């Protein structure tokens, strides 16, 4: 049913997201796992600190994508890693459009308090995604 799946992760609740994604796959499928290095910082953040943040997030992203690939090391699954810089919601929608995926799998991630304090990537994606979305309940 779903031949091409876009999977998003920030490194949390990976087991739950992998489990639900595997449940979607019947036969063969291409799974693209995207990690977004969020580059935006407030105006007064020192330049060196911004560079340090991007370096650390990139290293963290590589580890996360590597861990995710192990979860999809199964016959019939073609796993692809994608790391991009930018705004998470915009980049997820752009990747889904460019790759013409059938479904986006992402975690709900946050509690109601976190959602108000930090904002919600999944909420923004829901409003502009070009395809079906599976939101995996991951909040505690």
């Amino acid at each position, binding site marked *: 049913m779903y031949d091409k799946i876009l999977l998003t992760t920030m490194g949390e609740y990976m087991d739950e997201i992998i489990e639900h994604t595997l449940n979607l796959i019947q036969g063969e499928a291409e799974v693209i796992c995207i990690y977004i290095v969020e580059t935006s910082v407030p105006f007064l*953040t020192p330049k060196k600190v911004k560079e340090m943040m991007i370096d650390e997030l990139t290293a963290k992203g590589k580890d996360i994508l590597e861990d995710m690939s192990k979860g999809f090391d199964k016959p019939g699954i073609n796993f692809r890693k994608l790391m991009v810089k930018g705004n998470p919601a915009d980049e997820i929608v752009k990747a889904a459009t460019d790759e013409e995926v059938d479904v986006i799998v992402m975690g709900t991630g946050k509690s109601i308090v976190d959602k108000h304090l930090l904002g919600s990537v999944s909420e923004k994606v829901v409003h502009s995604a070009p395809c079906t979305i599976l939101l995996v309940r991951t909040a505690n």
Partner: protein
Amino acid sequence: MFELFILILALIISLIIVIKAADVFVDSIVEIGLALGISEIILGVTASAVGTSLPEFGSAMIAILTGSPDVGVGCAIGANIWNIAGILGVSAIFAGLITTKMEEVRRDGSMAFLTTLTITVALLLMGEISFVVGIILIIMYVVYLWILIRAQKSSKDREIECCEVDEKNRDLNKKTILMAVLGLVGLAIGCRAIVYCTVELSVMASIPEVLAGILLAFGTTAPEFFTVLTSAKKGLNSLAIGTVFGSNIFNILIGLGIPSLLVTIPVEPITIYFDAPVMVFMTLLLLFLIKRGMKLTRVEGIILVASYIIYIVTRLTIFS
């Protein structure tokens, strides 16, 4: 009223100039250091430790050297209290969770506590920051920097064992030197303007200069605020807590250490018997909260912010 508005506006503009000038200065100095062949590790460690703290250091230095030592001392101690209780507290509330590692708490947390304890004991015993105290503070910072560089080197060595080495070869150009000079000039002029505005505002508001310095710390710590809050929100926990400890160590050991080599810094009794002990208490409170599970939760963030509110309200009402 108009004069008050102009002073507040000038203070905000000066703060932005200082923060941006510090950014340009640090960036250019790192480039110059690389071109001169100084180790990237040494430059990286120093730049990250100094980077966010230059506005406090510049303001404290200029204040002390231009006859307003209370503003300088208030700014350094006020920044340390705000860094822990305000900035880290607010960041923990927003991020929900900030984790840390035992080795970082042992190294940076212990040093931050030792720093605050040293300056408080010195103040209680001597009532001022003399040349000898300044030498001790600077030696402590050099030792801390050496420990940081050693830790960074061992972690880089591990990376080199598994990965390819990124060789960098940079040339020193005139633009970089010019930017470093411009950054330094901007820093000096901006800090002078900050101190002038703070002193004038304290006269207009009839508050002691040391209290004005404590309030000034809200502005000079803006780079720490944005660094810690953004890192915590992005899950870069080591950077969040490391910035606070690093800044607190720098503010005292260098922020008060360097000026005390040039002039003995007199300190108000209220700072010796109230502000400095509060700084020690806040450092201990943070270490106690972190050590329980190597993390700061939202509830612990609220405890820190509540502690700051109690401190600042007490300072503004009872001890102003």
